[in-house]
């Protein structure tokens, strides 16, 4: 749970659990190098949740997979450092990573079906990794697995032990995936859109469950989503990604109270509000994120940004701290509260009012 007193910097006497420095991931492709992740730095303490937010194609999954060491070595090249408990793991071999998975870091994915073996009973999927990683005997593994299923709120876990994944609902399957991920007590859990495939009631249950488990185990969590609403009440800090880069990051409350990036603002204002009357036109920026081959010199958001000026397409803004606040970083020439952007915002608002008075809703947002 977010709270005012949550320390955001490093706790005295403890280093960060995860410290990612200047991480970039490229894929070889016939069209040239795809720069899926560029120069990402972030850090995470034990017990904390970092929300990574961005639209489809912004590089969230590639970043998570890079940290997990799950990329195909043949086409992906990674530079930068991934420091986990003080050790740089970015150069790990597959074997070294295999030792890490489950016990140090675990990941859950959007589609629970891809994470589970469809022809293996769910209980066995948990006991397998308990026996392999924790060296448990058959009986201990069985009992531990039943307890785990109970802790992720699978009703009648002893009975459900012997069912196959397809016999469960989507929400139940995701709970099994969480049980598998938590089985060997990882210190870091990466959850890549764990609830995007689920409906809102089950989403709320799964997020509650992750939060409880995280608190109980004092585990760190990276929660990836495209919906700022999902992380608002659940993450300690948030990093917003666009075109493979972090474009704004801050402790959650600060980010919402004082967002600087036009892109963060766009993600926020696209969410339908329950307090707005029906048929309220949603503010939807046009277009899609850019191709990540041969990026131009300027800000990657410029073609879609309502506040863009000439400078934006000429020079890429660097990620810099807000004055007097090293915790809040953003990369923008004309942040939303700058005089230049306010001027444009007023202008757009006036135009909109004229259009509405004329009775014809104009078709922006395409």
């Amino acid at each position, binding site marked *: 749970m977010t709270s005012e007193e949550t320390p955001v910097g490093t706790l005295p006497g403890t280093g960060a659990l995860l410290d990612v420095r200047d991480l970039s991931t490229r894929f070889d492709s016939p069209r040239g190098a795809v720069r899926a992740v560029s120069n990402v730095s972030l850090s995470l303490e034990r017990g904390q949740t970092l929300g990574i937010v961005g639209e489809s194609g912004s590089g969230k999954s590639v970043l998570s997979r890079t940290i997990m060491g799950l990329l195909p070595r043949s086409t992906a090249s990674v530079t930068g450092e991934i420091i986990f408990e003080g050790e740089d793991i970015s150069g790990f071999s597959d074997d070294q990573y295999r030792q890490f998975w489950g016990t140090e870091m675990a990941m859950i994915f959007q589609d629970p079906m891809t994470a589970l073996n469809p022809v293996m009973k769910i209980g066995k999927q948990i006991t397998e990794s308990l026996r392999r990683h924790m060296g448990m005997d058959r009986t201990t593994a069985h009992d531990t697995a039943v307890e785990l299923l109970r802790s992720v709120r699978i009703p009648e876990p002893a009975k459900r032990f012997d069912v196959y994944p397809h016999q469960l609902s989507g929400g139940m399957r995701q709970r099994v995936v969480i049980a598998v991920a938590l089985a060997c007590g990882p210190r870091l859990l990466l959850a890549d859109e764990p609830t995007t495939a689920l409906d809102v009631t089950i989403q709320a249950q799964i997020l*509650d469950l992750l939060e409880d488990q995280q608190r109980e185990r004092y585990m760190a969590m990276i929660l990836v989503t495209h919906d700022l609403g999902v992380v608002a009440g659940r993450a300690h800090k948030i990093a917003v990604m666009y075109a493979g880069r972090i474009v704004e990051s801050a402790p959650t409350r600060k980010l919402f109270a004082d967002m600087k990036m036009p892109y963060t603002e766009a993600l926020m204002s*696209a969410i339908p509000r329950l307090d707005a009357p029906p048929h309220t036109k949603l503010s939807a920026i046009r277009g899609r994120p850019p191709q990540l081959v041969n990026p131009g010199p300027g800000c990657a958001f410029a073609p879609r940004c309502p506040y863009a000026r000439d400078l934006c397409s000429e020079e890429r803004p660097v990620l810099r701290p807000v004055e007097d606040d090293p915790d809040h970083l953003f990369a923008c020439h004309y942040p939303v509260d700058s005089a230049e952007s306010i001027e444009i915002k007023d202008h757009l608002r006036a135009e909109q009012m004229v259009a509405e008075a004329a009775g014809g809703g104009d078709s922006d*947002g395409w």
Partner: protein
Amino acid sequence: MVIPMAGSGTSHLRPSEKPLLTVENLTVEFPARRRKVVSAVSNLSFDLLPGETLGLVGESGCGKSSTGKAIIQLPPPTSGTVTLGNTELTALSGKELRQQRTRLQMIFQDPISSLNPRKNVFDIVEEPLRIWNLGDAEERDRRVTECLHAVGVDVDGARERKPHEFSGGQCQRISIARAVVTEPELIICDEPVSALDVLVQAQILNLLEEMKQRFGLTLVFVAHDLAVVKNISDRVAVMYLGKICEIGPSEAIFSNPAHPYTEALLNAIPVPDPSVQVDSSDHLRGDLPSPIDPPAGCRFHTRCERATDVCSRVEPQMAPVGNGHYVACHHPLITPVEISRSVGTTVTPTD
């Protein structure tokens, strides 16, 4: 003594207002193992006035898609009636039904897989015109161009490219173009934005509103997220396990939910404001029960905090709680009103 009835009644229908679509006692069943049946939709009734958007909301598996498919008769319902204008669709022969089919279209949840992967996008949009033999080649070309333009898809690109070369949001635009091309009166949108990110979702919701104005459409909009449904709907029907538990004007459903399940759906929506505390005790527990042998009485009683003895025995009937606002619950969150007094009364919460 209350006699349990087969459904929750039809008092919320508006026959005097000349609905475009009236669905009455719709039941959809599928065969299950050991000669049991999946009761996907049970005695469902609702109506839509011309130009109205009805939001149909509920958890995965509650029967939303089955309802949509039964309306377009693919497949026809197990029982009940679907009346479009003056035509009762379930009574029609195959040929008669085909003549009606251009009046109804459906848009599906998964934008990419619902389009034929082997055809180019222009042909995909044109296809319904060819199937129903509408217009000559030149007229068809003009109409497809107009529709692609209306949804913001590049016409030349559409002639050359296949669906997998477009993003999820673009495929949903293509589905919309394909749906409006036959000039239908009613479009059923089955979770058209559930697979999209928030930015594309906003684009598609705005586009649907615009298409509705431009082509004079009436919409059924299916979703599981009440915030999305509120944005687009005039009227909202909340479904649980094959039945409607609450129906009414959008605004009333949100400001004054009457059914405990509606309230639970509202509590589940993530609020984009960190100062709002997430309270997990407000969140609905457990999963939707199986639609084979659904719970007796009120189907929600196994998960409802207000449930009493009567709830597990007697099915609640639709009763008015405000202007055009009806709920089927023995212990609703707001007090039922007399129909005669319902017009213009303000409704206050009971507790």
